[in-house]
């Protein structure tokens, strides 16, 4: 799966380079995201600005990553488009993940 990664201070930014995060992409997405955590990254920002479709499989990957981080790290999201935000709201997972409009605001929140 095509993911872009970069670091901004203490924050490791992961950006999917596709518009659709679904059940077909979920296994590779999970492998890569958990791989970053296992490699020692603890402050992870998922930039979803290109993603217009996100299904329950992708939600499950994010929950899995959050649980892998446990109390030792944070997973936050930015660039969440309206349909994707609605998915978080319907599942109530917007209460669990911090959602930011801009990457800059999200990065600043880790400090």
């Amino acid at each position, binding site marked *: 799966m095509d993911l872009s990664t970069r670091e901004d201070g203490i924050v490791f930014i992961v950006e999917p380079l596709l518009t659709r995060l679904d059940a*077909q992409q979920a296994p590779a997405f999970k492998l890569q995201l958990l791989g970053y955590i296992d490699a020692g990254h603890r402050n992870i920002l998922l930039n979803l600005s290109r993603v217009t*479709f996100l299904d329950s*499989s992708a939600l*499950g990957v994010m929950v899995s990553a959050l649980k892998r981080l446990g109390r030792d790290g944070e997973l936050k999201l930015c660039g969440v488009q309206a349909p994707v935000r*609605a998915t978080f709201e*319907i*599942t109530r997972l917007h*209460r*669990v993940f911090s959602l930011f409009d801009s990457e800059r605001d999200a990065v600043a929140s880790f400090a």
Partner: protein
Amino acid sequence: MTTIRMVSRIPPALDHVRLLSSCVRGISLEFLAGKPYVELVELAVAEACTNIVRHAGAPTAGEIELEVVIGDTDIDFVLRDRGDAFAPAATEMPIVDPNKPETLPEGGYGVPLIYRIMDAVQYAREGTTNVLRMRCVRPADSV
């Protein structure tokens, strides 16, 4: 308005689900404009298709058929497959406690999403065929 009926069929594989999904997106934006969460109608149908691929005995399920019936007041999205009987259960959203992330379920969001997005959902086993009917009421100004 004359009722419009469309039928599409795909092999029971995840890489084909997006094709049906794209059809549903186009229909929704055209005929359900103004409906809250209209973009998510595509998600509901995709979740149902993914369930069929994963749980209904694919690849023995045969093709997945999507029938869309566009009427004056509502749109029916009807999925049919010949896999194992699979009535969508667990229609309640999993409990999410933001203070206990370690207890968060990693699955179980798909079927409740379908029920929240659609106005009515009905499953039936008709002979050897699973039939899942999902109805969206059309906003008055979309008719």
